[in-house]
């Protein structure tokens, strides 16, 4: 039905274009017209398509409430007497029946007889609405087309009007992204606000205890219901720092190799491989961290502990020998590996943006490659690289979820020991929002508080990074 309608509208639009153009050609014969016939054709096409689409959109938005009104108006008493949720279920079944599907529930005596009647009535209402919408859309199209045809005069500026429509369409497209973002922030802020009605902001931001389980009974153990986010942000920071310690030097040095030292063949091989690495899904890095790196590091550090102390049970040895699979170091190191391609390709771009003339100048002074890199390229490129690191890598590291979920652990320890189990903001959001939720408890809502804080931190980092990159760019302009 809808497809046929769209086809008809498309045909009308095409006809409007051809008709408008032909009409314009006829009317403009021997006259100096402002716009070319094809532009009048395009104008007619827009005036056919746009009103029809608006009508269809309005129909899409308002069809459901209108239909509900109409069906509610004629409900038999037996149905009207039902509780609201039962009534909804009844209508839903009537709908299904109308579409030729079996009902989901078995309805008792008076209702069972009403059901097919209601189904037929609903189908009728629906049909009427659909036909109404279709006719309205076609009418709107025709009226729009007639309006456009009436505008085919030599002095009408169809060219500018078409440009205006195109401007509008492009603006709407970019507005969608912006509005969506605003919507996301709004919903986040709304739920976060509800959370902060349960837990004061200061406790959330400065509390050092994170234990979102709320006791159901007074004597329950381990369910204190503390919402201090400091351990989570500390864990995030720790893992981010470890990741940057891995990714920044390796990525930067590999970028220097690629842009300054590598021959054509080496570059042709290494660059695509790095890009493949960038395309590996983070969940795969998660496996790698949880099943390979984690156990290896555990064995390694426990061996060191045994070697240093001679036994696992005394003093320092107890601590060292009890390293677990899940620790900040595992998550951070694997996240760092994940970030290497990003850091490398960003740094590569920035190094390539340094003019060749600076390299030539340095080489002509008798500088070696490494001297040129150290004294000319890096000083020129470092601010940009720092900005890029902050912009892309740090934001990614903070927002990264899968690796830390699988490799960092769940215990909210406030520690900066990389061998300890820590948890991050994103991990907590995942654990809080997976499974069945009740959206009125502080436990679930705390996820939104975390999300909003994380969002604000990342936003701030992005702004700072943009500034750095901008000041750096001005250097060569």
């Amino acid at each position: 039905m809808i497809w046929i309608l769209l086809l008809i509208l498309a045909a009308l639009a095409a006809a409007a274009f051809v008709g408008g153009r032909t009409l314009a050609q006829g009317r403009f014969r021997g006259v100096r017209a402002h716009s070319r016939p094809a532009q009048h054709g395009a104008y007619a096409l827009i005036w056919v398509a746009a009103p029809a689409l608006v009508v269809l959109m309005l129909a899409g938005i308002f069809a459901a409430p209108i239909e509900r009104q109409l069906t509610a108006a004629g409900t038999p008493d037996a149905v009207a007497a039902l509780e609201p949720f039962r009534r909804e279920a009844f209508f839903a079944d009537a709908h299904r029946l109308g579409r030729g599907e079996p009902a989901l529930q078995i309805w008792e005596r008076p209702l069972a007889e009403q059901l097919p009647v209601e189904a037929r009535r609903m189908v009728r209402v629906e049909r009427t609405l659909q036909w109404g919408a279709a006719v309205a859309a076609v009418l709107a199209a025709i009226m729009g087309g007639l309006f456009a045809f009436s505008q085919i005069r030599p002095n009408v500026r169809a060219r500018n009007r078409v440009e205006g429509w195109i401007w509008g369409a492009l603006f709407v497209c970019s507005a969608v992204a912006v509005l969506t973002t605003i919507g996301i922030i709004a919903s986040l802020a709304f739920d976060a606000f509800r959370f902060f009605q349960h837990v004061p902001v200061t406790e959330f931001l400065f509390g050092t205890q994170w234990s979102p389980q709320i006791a159901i009974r007074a004597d329950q153990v381990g369910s204190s219901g503390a919402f201090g986010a400091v351990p989570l942000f500390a864990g995030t920071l720790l893992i981010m720092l470890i990741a940057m310690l891995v990714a920044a030097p390796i990525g930067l040095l590999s970028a220097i190799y690629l842009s300054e030292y590598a021959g054509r063949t080496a570059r042709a091989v290494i660059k695509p491989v790095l890009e493949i690495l960038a395309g590996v899904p983070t969940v795969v890095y998660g496996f790698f961290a949880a099943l390979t790196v984690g156990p290896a590091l555990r064995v390694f550090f426990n061996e060191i502990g045994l070697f240093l102390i001679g036994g696992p049970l005394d003093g320092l040895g107890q601590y060292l020998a009890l390293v677990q699979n899940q620790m900040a170091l595992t998550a951070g190191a694997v996240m760092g590996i994940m970030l290497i391609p990003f850091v490398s390709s960003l740094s590569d771009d920035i190094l390539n943006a340094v003019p060749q003339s600076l390299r030539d100048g340095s080489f002509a002074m008798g500088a070696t490659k490494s001297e040129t890199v150290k004294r000319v390229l890096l000083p020129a490129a470092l601010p940009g690289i720092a900005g890029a690191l902050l912009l892309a890598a740090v934001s990614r590291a903070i927002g990264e979820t899968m690796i830390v979920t699988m490799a960092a652990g769940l215990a909210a320890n406030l520690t900066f020991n990389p061998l300890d189990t820590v948890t991050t903001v994103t991990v907590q959001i995942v654990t809080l929002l997976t499974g069945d939720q009740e959206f009125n408890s502080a436990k679930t809502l705390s996820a939104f508080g975390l999300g909003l804080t994380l969002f604000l931190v990342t936003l701030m980092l992005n702004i700072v990074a943009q500034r750095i990159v901008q000041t750096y760019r001005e250097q060569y302009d």
Partner: protein
Amino acid sequence: MGGQVLPEAAPAQTPDRPEPRMEDAEPAPGPTVVDTPPSGPIKIAARDVSVFYDGKQALYDVSLDIPDKTVTALIGPSGCGKSTFLRTMNRMNDTISGAKVTGRIAMDDEDINDRSIDPVLLRARVGMVFQRPNPFPKSIYENVAYGPKIHGLVSAKSEMDGVVESALKRAGLWEEVADRLQSSAMGLSGGQQQRLVIARAIAVNPEVILMDEPCSALDPIATARIEELIDELRERFCIVIVTHSMAQAARVSQRTAFFHMGRLVETGDTETIFQNPRERRTLDYITGRFG
């Protein structure tokens, strides 16, 4: 000179037609030095130098003597190989992947392409100034101190101050920048930047300075300053300058070499080349009939 026109030079009578790149259209190989030799001592002697980029030949068997304490101008239309030849003299072609240089270039009778010569050390002896001013995005002081620093020429800070000052003075820039040595070189004007780059080049006390169209990005006043400077520097250095401007070549150089289509066509004293060229192609080029 005159009177030395060889019969082989006949194809040059149709200069507007692209010269066929065939061996038989060329003068017979061998010592083709029919030009007047330079009078002073020879600093750089190039023999049968050819350059290939990715197997494509850009320079054909160039043999040229470059005298010391003289300005030698390399002229010719775009793509004639004059810059390519210039870059063979400090082995800058080494930095381009796929570039290959054959033939012998001797500096003070020492083959600079010899394996025992380190291009990095060679470039400390042969400075280069580029088409567009390319100061490093550092302070004026750091720019001039760059060469002495990487070559370890000076150790004490006071000594470095002296080197920087004298280089800037010789480049005629000292008075303009003396009070802002620590500010960024990017804030200087184009002409000042180019003089700074010259100061940077002479700070390591090179023997030869190569200039690749050093004034093409400058206005006439800045150009005049650079030309004056080149004339002063001639007393201490061997200077080779690539230029597109006939007038500049006539003004600043004592020797001129005319390149066309990757070949050295003619070389001699600048006066002779401009007033009484031996080759028809040279005459056509300097009188502006092509190029």
